[in-house]
């Protein structure tokens, strides 16, 4: 299907594009440009004047051990969230694909968490894992496990990873299920006749055929973990204890809003923006090449 609508004048197409372009301009291009400009300035301690300092903010940020710590936290956090969310979603999708009865019910239930706001999902997990009021938190302590994510950094990280991954499982699940259902049944039957048991079939036929989906989701999940998990971290740990769960995006917020170090905060957000642009480019390049059929 290649039907192009051709407009006669210029006015109508411009008008139709305008709302889209206006939204992008006001909510993305303008703030992004402001961030880039801000990242080149340095404010005095009282916020009364600012001086142009070139790339000094970037140099400071990259040399700052606190920023490097946040980057390391982010690497651990983002990769754990992506692996957990993808793994669980794939497992659930395979089960849902097999289910014959109640498939629609099962699917609907699994899609629900996606509709829950990050802060609410955080509160939900808090009710489960809080050491004194959480169901699981109290059970763990009663069983002799010293569980308190407000004191133990690793436990705090584990909790924000679980809460963040939980929200993303639904999204991944939908894509994996669609991917599984687009694999021709006869290919799986051919593999069965060729002697492959279900587990072997999965790893040698199903999983490779899902790889374009998996790669797409990996990028989406990384972007999610980098940018969209602010709410979860803010509600659960506020980056603590200490700086144990302070990710790059959370540090942008802390430095800009709490510490009012606008230049540094802007430089950090520009770095993140460059990262996500790079990720998107990689995705478009690779997905094209890795589709098998």
């Amino acid at each position, binding site marked *: 299907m290649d039907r192009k609508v051709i407009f006669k004048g210029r006015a109508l197409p411009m008008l139709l594009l305008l709302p889209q372009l206006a939204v992008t301009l006001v909510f993305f291009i303008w703030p992004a440009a402001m961030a880039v400009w801000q990242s080149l300035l340095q404010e005095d301690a009282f916020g009364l004047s600012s001086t142009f300092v070139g790339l000094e903010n970037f140099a400071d940020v990259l040399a700052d051990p606190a920023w490097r710590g946040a980057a390391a936290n982010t690497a651990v956090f983002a990769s754990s969230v992506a692996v957990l969310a993808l793994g669980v979603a794939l497992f659930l999708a395979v089960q849902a694909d097999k289910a014959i009865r109640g498939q629609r019910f099962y699917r609907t239930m699994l899609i629900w968490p996606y509709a829950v706001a990050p802060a609410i999902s955080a509160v939900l997990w808090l009710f489960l894992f809080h050491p004194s009021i959480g169901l699981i938190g109290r059970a763990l302590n009663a069983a002799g496990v010293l569980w308190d994510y407000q004191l133990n950094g690793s436990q705090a990280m584990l909790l924000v990873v679980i809460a963040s991954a939980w929200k993303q499982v639904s999204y991944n699940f939908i894509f994996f299920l669609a991917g599984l259902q687009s694999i*021709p049944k*006869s*290919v799986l*039957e*051919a*593999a*069965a*006749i*060729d*002697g*492959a*048991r279900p587990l*072997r079939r999965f790893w*040698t*036929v199903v999983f*490779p*055929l899902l*790889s374009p989906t998996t790669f797409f989701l990996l990028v989406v999940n990384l972007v999610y973990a980098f940018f969209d998990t602010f709410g979860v971290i803010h509600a659960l740990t506020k980056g603590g204890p200490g700086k144990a769960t302070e990710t790059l995006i959370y540090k942008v917020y802390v430095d800009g809003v709490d510490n009012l170090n606008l230049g540094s905060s802007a430089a950090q957000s520009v770095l993140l923006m460059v990262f996500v642009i790079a990720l998107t480019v990689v995705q478009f390049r690779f997905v094209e090449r890795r589709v*098998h*059929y």
Partner: protein
Amino acid sequence: MATLNLSAITKSFGATTVLHGIDLAVADGEMIVIVGASGCGKSTLLRIVAGLEAPTTGHVAIGGREVTRLEPADRDIAMVFQNYALYPHMTVAQNMAYGLKIRGTPKDEIARRVAETAGLLGIGPLLARKPRELSGGQRQRVAMGRAIIREPKLFLFDEPLSNLDAKLRVQMRGEIRRLQQRLGVTSLYVTHDQVEAMTLGDRLVVMHQGRAAQVASPMEVWSRPADTYVAGFIGSPAMNLLAGTLAEGGTAVQLKAGPLLRFTDGPRAGGDGRPLTIGVRPEHMLRDGEAIVTVALDLVEPLGSETVLHGMLSSGEVLTARLPGMVPAVGSAMPLAIPAEALHVFDAESGRRLDA
């Protein structure tokens, strides 16, 4: 190489029964073609033999071994699918080697057999390609290769040629038959195409509404169809089926369309007035003879060496005739003769063949 025995196979999906008790004994090295219109249960039967479906009742035995409850992997069979079902992410060589690899065949042995099979099928230059880089005919060959390479006890073909164009189909049909005879592997071949059925099978199973209407050699099916369904299904153009009643003490039939035809092979039982269906193949109709019917022609199809005539009899029944040479154009009424020695006699109610 093995025998295949099906006994009393039935299959129901919920309240719908698609197979009503199929029995079949296939000899070692025999090629059986299961033919029927769509929805007759032929593919379901094949999938039951493959183990992709479980029969509701009945048993499947391959080489004398009961396999009814076994997984497809444990049956030592190979199958060629209608859409080829090649693994899209593997090269041609990997596609063929997959089954061997799973069985733990040594690497050098796999390489040797892939090369040998590719040579046999003429796909050597394609080994490094992915299925999407192949034409329909090439994919078909790779699918065959994947089946052959494992040297299974049984080949199953599920309408393997129906996605190919007409010319390629004829060519591949010949190749499949030659290959099967050369390898001597017992085969089950499902098709809806009667030409494939006639040319490929040692024996045919003509299926109709979940039952085997006739199991016999192609020539037997053609010359002595077991019922009116088989009579109409095998042969092109289809056999003419005309209404009549038994007459003259069972020695003749009075056609509704007029003439009285005397049986040349002896009387039928049942007494005068018994309703019959008389079958005459279009190619057996004559221009001249004793029992003349007048056909109002409505379509004439000249095919060069012969002409196919379609028309209507005075009884309102349609009649098709295939005559040698050229024949007059549409619109004219034409007298044609029904030869008494070429009649097929069926009971009008049950549709079963009535022999003398």
